């Protein structure tokens, strides 16, 4: 087994040990999943669009 493979196995074991505990998970990753970083940005985009839409209507742009 190469050195990199050994490191991978060790890190997987660490993750497994961390998962097995009852300590709450990392809140930042919990709320903003690293696999889907677009979730937060798209939500902010919808928020800006929502209030922006009303402001443009109020300003009489359409």
């Amino acid at each position, binding site marked *: 087994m190469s050195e990199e493979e050994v490191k991978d196995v060790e890190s997987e074991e660490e993750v497994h040990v961390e*998962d097995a*505990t*009852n*300590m*709450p*998970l990392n*809140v930042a*990753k*919990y*709320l903003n*999943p690293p*696999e*889907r970083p677009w*979730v*937060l940005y*798209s*939500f902010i985009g*919808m*928020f800006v669009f*929502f*209030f922006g839409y*009303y*402001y443009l*209507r*109020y*300003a*009489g742009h359409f």
Partner: protein
Amino acid sequence: MAETISTVGFILDVLVLGFILYLHFKKDDRTWTQKLGASMMCWFLVCHAFMHLVQFLPTWNLWIFDDWAFTMYGGEERDIVGTIVAESLWKVAITGFVVAMLITPMPLVKNANLFFGGICLLLVLFLWESYYTWGHPSQEADMVWFWPFWSGVPALMLLFLTYLSWNYLSSPEGAETRMESFTDRAGLFAVLAVILWAGKNWFDWMGIFNDGSFFYWDGMPGEGWLHFLADGIGKFEQGMIIFPLMVLSVGSVIYLRNRGSWLLGGIILSFLLLGIAHDYMFGGDTPDYGVISIFVNEDSFAESFALLTHGTMQSLARPLIVLFIVVRFGMVQTQHSPVVSRAMTIMALAGAMSVITEILQPMFGVPQLLSGFFLGAILAFEIERKIMAAMEPPEEENPDWELDGCEGDELHRRINIAMGAYLLLTFILALFISRGELFI
């Protein structure tokens, strides 16, 4: 008919409350987050039952209500004690959902003392707000009438719940990691909570999408920062009722595409469609009875539609959503008493179906016997067993999360005491204010 909905809503509130309390005190292997969640749902039901009580009991002309005069909803007299107590119960219900949101299925704050301190701070601010709106400050000439926390906190809660819902609805099918399995469950709770809190307004607030006066500033220029703040919070609260519908509608389309499940996605989209229908028919100056009178009883359609949407969402759906939440998230375990659980489901089904068919009668001219026939048929087919099976939580990991500072069960006890103490203090405050002692 409206007071009948309140009566049925009250019965359902009390039944679900009794059901949760009965199972809540059984000894089992629930985690502290599940037990705390059950307590928070009980606080919500106490508030909701009280709201129904003050809606229909004054119509019964009981002598005790002549003294207490709980007629703040639609009555001629506004009793300060009753109003402050009713407001405080709503604030407790909001706090209950804030707590449940922060612990389901995983606590977002690891430090128990910090968590408890935050909840206490919120309750103190709620208490101060009651004094601000009804006590001495309300007698000042330059008083700005608004509820900074009663309006602001649920709006922020809805914003956060909407984000959790968006995270869930837009995620691919099947939780691939441990993290995603928890965020999915948090998202499901959030979707249900958003529907519970904002859903009733989605039907008749749809016209806000065409409203160009949303940013119109009520306060005059130069009137001070408090007017600015009050207007800002009011607009934020208004926006946070409709914004979740927009996000959930987009999310439900993605959800349908990813998972193909019409149960959740279809329910959310039906809110949107019914809201559009309501706005189309009643949003203008004159309802387009020409279209709808073809197939309905036009005299009572507007009232019936409002009851079918807003009324049922407010009175019936809320206790039923709470029932679903407590069972689905394991906050109570129905295995303790399958008979009681089945009876509860039958009552929930009967309550919902009887009111909906009662409202549909004038709309579609359905004879009462026919609607009763369908209700009986639904129960005879034992649909409640399928509903019970659908509500049961799947096999999933439920860690008894560790906290810094104190045990979860201790945190649970402290939060319950804090909420009870808050209610007692607001009641005392209301008594002082009603006697004029805090006006001076």
